[in-house]
């Protein structure tokens, strides 16, 4: 279990307990946090669960696998700390993770 904080683009913050094994995307979708669409359902086939990982967390989250950067090319305003939240699997190590949501997903 990890406490994950999702900060919407308008500044609204949600801190949620997400079970280990779920993804950061699923934590948002299951708790109706707006700002993450996840159109493809988590198969790394779109870029609509795009988040910005808080700088000091960026090197602590599981690293990108092949293909994630290709999808991020198609995200709305990707930055250096961009990730697809469907690729971030929750574990105790992620307790306290903060992600910022982009202005929009599409």
């Amino acid at each position: 279990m990890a406490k994950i904080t999702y900060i919407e683009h308008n500044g609204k913050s949600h801190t949620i307990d997400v079970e280990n094994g779920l993804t950061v995307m699923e934590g948002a979708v299951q708790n109706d946090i707006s700002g993450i669409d996840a159109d493809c359902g988590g198969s790394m086939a779109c870029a609509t669960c795009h988040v910005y990982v808080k700088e000091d967390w960026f090197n602590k989250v599981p690293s990108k696998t092949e293909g994630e950067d290709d999808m991020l090319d198609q995200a709305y305003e990707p930055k250096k700390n961009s990730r697809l939240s469907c690729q971030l699997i929750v574990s105790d190590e992620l307790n306290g993770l903060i992600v910022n949501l982009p202005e929009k997903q599409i």
Partner: protein
Amino acid sequence: MIKTDVVIIGAGPTGLFCAHQLGVIGLKCEIIDNLDKAGGQCIELYPDKPIYDIPAIPECTGEELTKNLLKQIKPFNFKIHVSQRVEKVSKEGINWKLTTSSKIEFLSPNIVIAGGVGSFEPRKFSVKECEKFENNSIFYSIKDKSIFNGKIVSIFGGGDSALDWAIELSKNSKVILVHRRDEFRGASSSVDKVKQLKKENKIELFTMYQLSKVSGDNNLESMEIKHDDGTTKSFKTDYLLGFFGLIMQLGPILDWGLNFDKKTIKVNTENFETNQKGIFAIGDICLYPGKLKLILSGFHEGALAARGCFKYARPDEKLRFEFTTTSKAIRERLGK
């Protein structure tokens, strides 16, 4: 005006198999898709990637799956209307009237929405002022490349479209290629070619940059790009081309009075009809308790929706359940 028993919106695997099931029970249908070919997400998102969970097919690619589905419905000669989106749906007596973006009209008692997560549209530049120049100096696809002759063309993106057009247009235009990172996802031969052209000063290449500003009166005059480290550069440019891939957008479908839950439409699990009589939803776009977004679930939903269409298309007939293996009528429909 095209009259038919069923209009299927979406030529992905679910829509194609639903068409097959309609053909089997003796109904006619017309299929509409916004992409320029059949296949939906399978073709657009993962044509070369293997799929392992189609029953009795241990492994196939999105392209192979699409090819086989097209082969399976070939005997019925159903028409697929590509490169157009259904813009308007209205009730006319017992029928639904549909109008596409190419102004083709359909009249049918049934609509099957197999629209996935929406129609594919190009992702656009996020800089707001770009809207003003769209279809004038800023494009997301190319119809007539001759307009770029002798002009300065700035191309954004890192995939095959961006690379291929950079190479092609560098023959007759000054090309500036901009990508947000150092690696390109396009074919390595194209990447090598672009690097070669850069050495020969035929292409200007900027990586780790994204568009930050555009300006001009009626036509685009200049742009500013911003490096990851915050520094900016400005250039004169006549055209901007953005190749950021396609995104899925629901579009006008949201205005048809359907029972939406976020981006999905609530259906019953008996025949996948929506809250509107004669409008069915199958595949990724439908929602019911236990819904799985798998291709195989879409096949099941399509088979049942096809039977649901029968009662509106043939109100005076009774649908008899038959197997393809033993029914003479079905074998005749299949041309066997």
